[in-house]
């Protein structure tokens, strides 16, 4: 008997007891369904978080004053921390030319009122350095960003976020070349940034000026909120972190006065959490499939007993042990696979629904689908072995005499 015929025979006998077959599959349906739903939601969430973190720029390490926590690159994260880092550290760090670092960035932000004619807006003024657009993956749309020349000469130039540009100039007038008032100082607009958002926060609602200009003309403070460096590759990040620790320890003399945050560490942490969740899910899957499998085994044992006479007849007309074994194994595998398919459909539907209501993108990966189906067939085969062996070992004459 070939496999396809065995499957047809199995479907035929499973359909003899449709409701019972359904109840038997329920364990596998729920197991596979919940795992498919959870992994697709989990994978969706984790890829979303990873994507958000990479919008901050890649391979970044941030030095912030004091002991701080938070995502790297968010200069706001270290607000209120001790004033320790200065523009001088930025220049020293650049001068040191540490290996593995491709770019360096310092930031100090403050709030200010911006005016142009009758229009005005209050926004964040980020004093920073020329590598900002490339390191933050936040390009200029119009005009240019300021250069090292501007930084050294403390020129009064400003690059506007797209929202600020809209607020001050609207659609009608071009912003470039206009002079606006930031606080009490006139600045010339030399560029407008591309629109960008981070986790729902509008990054277009800020303006950028040379750090030195901000220090001298706007804040009067020499302190920066963070210094960020970009490593040449992900593999270099831990080496660069060590270098930064050594460098700032030398400068500040106290490891408590600064913190180096590695973006890779955070990604690793998130991936670690995802990994743990995946492990947990695998555990839940394992248990639910175990329960489902035991259900299948139980029903298959009942079925073997009920069908003793059928087995006797099949053996009487020439079924070998192997034929009976295969028949019952295929039957339990079919049962389990059907459960897996229904569970897969249910889980995919559930994740769609959750995606619609939560706004998360859910990802149903091919691997998850294949794994769910392979595992459910495997469960059916594994838990079908014992009942099928019982069936195959029945003595033909005893089986025929049964009832």
């Amino acid at each position, binding site marked *: 008997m070939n496999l396809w015929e065995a499957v047809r025979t199995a479907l035929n006998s499973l359909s003899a007891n449709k409701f019972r077959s359904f109840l038997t599959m329920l364990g596998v349906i729920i197991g596979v369904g919940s795992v498919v739903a959870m992994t697709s939601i989990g994978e969706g969430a984790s890829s979303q978080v990873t994507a958000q973190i990479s919008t901050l720029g890649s391979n970044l390490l941030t030095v912030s004053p004091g002991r701080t926590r938070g995502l790297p690159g968010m200069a706001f994260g270290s607000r209120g921390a001790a004033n320790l880092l200065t523009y001088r550290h930025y220049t020293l760090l650049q001068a040191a030319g540490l290996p593995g670092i491709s770019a360096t960035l310092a930031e100090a932000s403050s709030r200010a009122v911006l005016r142009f004619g009758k229009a005005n807006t209050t926004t964040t003024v980020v004093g920073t350095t020329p590598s900002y657009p490339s390191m933050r993956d936040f390009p200029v749309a119009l005009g240019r960003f300021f250069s090292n020349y501007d930084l050294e000469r403390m020129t009064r130039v400003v690059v506007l976020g797209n929202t600020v540009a809209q607020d001050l100039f609207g659609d009608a007038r071009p912003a470039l070349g206009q002079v606006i008032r930031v606080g009490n100082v006139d600045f010339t607009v030399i560029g407008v940034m591309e629109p960008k958002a981070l986790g729902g926060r509008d990054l277009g609602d800020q303006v950028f000026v040379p750090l030195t200009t901000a220090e001298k003309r706007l804040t009067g403070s020499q302190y920066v909120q963070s210094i960020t460096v970009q490593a040449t590759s992900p593999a270099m990040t831990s080496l660069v972190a060590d270098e930064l620790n050594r460098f700032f320890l030398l400068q500040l003399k106290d490891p408590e006065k600064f913190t180096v945050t590695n973006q890779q560490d955070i990604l690793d942490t998130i991936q670690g959490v995802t990994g743990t969740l995946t492990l947990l899910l695998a555990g839940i899957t394992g248990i639910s499939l175990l329960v489902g499998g035991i259900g299948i085994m139980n029903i298959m044992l009942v079925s073997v007993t009920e069908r003793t006479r059928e087995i006797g007849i099949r053996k*009487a007309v*020439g079924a*070998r042990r192997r034929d009976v074994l295969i028949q019952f194994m295929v039957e339990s595998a079919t049962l389990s696979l059907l459960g897996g398919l229904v569970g897969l459909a249910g889980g995919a539907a559930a994740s769609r629904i959750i995606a619609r209501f939560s706004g998360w993108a859910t990802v149903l990966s091919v691997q998850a689908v294949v794994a769910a189906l392979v595992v459910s067939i495997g469960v059916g085969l594994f838990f079908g072995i014992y009942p099928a062996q019982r069936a195959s070992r029945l003595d033909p004459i005893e089986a*025929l005499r049964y009832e």
Partner: protein
Amino acid sequence: MQPVIEVQDLTRVYYAGTVPVPALRGVSFTVEPGEFVAIMGPSGSGKSSLMNILGCLDTPSSGSYRLEGREISSLSDDQRAAIRNRRIGFVFQTFNLLPRLTALQNVELPMQYAGVPRSRRTALAKEALASVGLSGRLHHRPNQLSGGQAQRVAIARALVNDPAIVLADEPTGNLDTRSGEEIMAIFQSLHRRGKTIVLVTHEPDIARHGQRILHFRDGLLVQDERVAQPVDARDVLERLTEPAAPVNAEGVSAAR
């Protein structure tokens, strides 16, 4: 010519708990190719025990059983399954058809296990059903058939792999006289075409359809009788039809 069946000092002892129940107590006989042998004896005389051994469904406690010259007692389960499949056609008193399968599928079953390809299988099964007069019932389930028809399906199933011998254990036991006689007519026609047949019955009228009767009592073969003039089932059927007028013209499906 080599005998089809050669049985020597065959015994079969069952155990009711620890109490031994001897069902066969040393039986020896042979069956030649083309013979039609009836086995007769009262209930409990060991007829079924013998048939189960002859049909390779059961193994003897001692003694030797050769089928077509091959010693059976020492074979493995799967080897005996193969013999049941190809060399033996077994017809049971209770038909033993699979209730969820159609007549055609039931007849195909032995060929499935023999690995006969699907299209050929269906053709052969149809042919076998036609030979027992059931071409019109291919897609009926056993519970949609009369007892006589069900038994004919079982005979078609027994014949379909062209076995060396057809064994029947009280095949007419559950049937009325007329259906029983129709079944006997089929066995006799098989016999005329050269099949070897061993048939168990406790009814003398049925036994006299064979050429030879083995009488059993208490697990022993007590008499090996030649039948001078075997009853022809066709004559009996004719006689059954004559006096009683209102029997349906087909003479077959009205059986039950």
